[in-house]
């Protein structure tokens, strides 16, 4: 479990942008894995299964929260990232922009840039054609570029 807990927690956090909700989803995903252990064939299958279930449960939780809006108690940037390089302010803006995308492109972007998966792997996890995954990636990147430019952020960080 320890090997996968940051993967599962981060997927839920980047999809929901709320630490408490991410903890809850991550906990549910591990308990569901525990209940389904007999069907898991290998460690790779467990990782695939955890990614799939975490994304699905995060989407369900996001829909539930849309119906019953809540004020997150903790909407602060993450306390500890595995790789803390780069501009933290820009990273925060990017995380918020990704969290504001519709659920399908958001899931694609999180799996692509958090998990470094290629479009074919993402298409298997999300049960989505590879062409749709590629199209979500291209359109989301274009949208992020446009929003960053409107905020005065260039390709290499803040412009004076």
């Amino acid at each position: 479990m320890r090997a996968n807990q940051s993967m599962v927690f981060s997927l839920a956090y980047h999809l929901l942008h709320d630490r408490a909700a991410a903890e809850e989803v991550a906990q549910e995903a591990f308990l569901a894995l525990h209940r389904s252990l007999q069907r898991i064939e290998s460690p790779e299958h467990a990782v695939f299964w955890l990614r799939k279930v975490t994304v699905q449960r995060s989407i369900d939780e996001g829909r539930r929260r849309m119906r019953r809006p809540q004020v997150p108690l903790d909407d602060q940037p993450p306390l500890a990232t595995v790789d803390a390089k780069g501009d933290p302010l820009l990273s925060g803006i990017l995380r918020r922009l990704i969290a504001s995308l519709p659920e399908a492109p958001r899931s694609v972007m999180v799996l692509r840039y958090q998990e470094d998966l290629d479009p074919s792997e993402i298409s298997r996890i999300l049960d989505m054609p590879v062409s749709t995954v590629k199209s979500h990636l291209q359109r989301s990147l274009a949208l992020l570029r446009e929003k960053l430019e409107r905020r005065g952020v260039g390709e290499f960080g803040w412009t004076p």
Partner: protein
Amino acid sequence: MDPLEQQLKQAMARIEPPADFAARVRAAGHRPSAWRSPALAAALMLLTVGGGLAWREHQGQIAKEQVMTAMRITARKLDRIQTHIKEVKP
């Protein structure tokens, strides 16, 4: 990978969950669910069945009282009619 994609990789880096996360998942896994506890499930079943029987008994009592009231009213009316007939008869 262009600069925006590199920034995205940094922004979406994995985050460590709270230190006690694994312990909490284990505790949640061992916590018996209400439906998995045989004693609690039996108690809930008894409460449901017992409650249903009590409700049916209560409804039966109300119906019985309504029938008795209707019979009393009918008997009084019949008495009055009988008295009236006796008065009219020469």
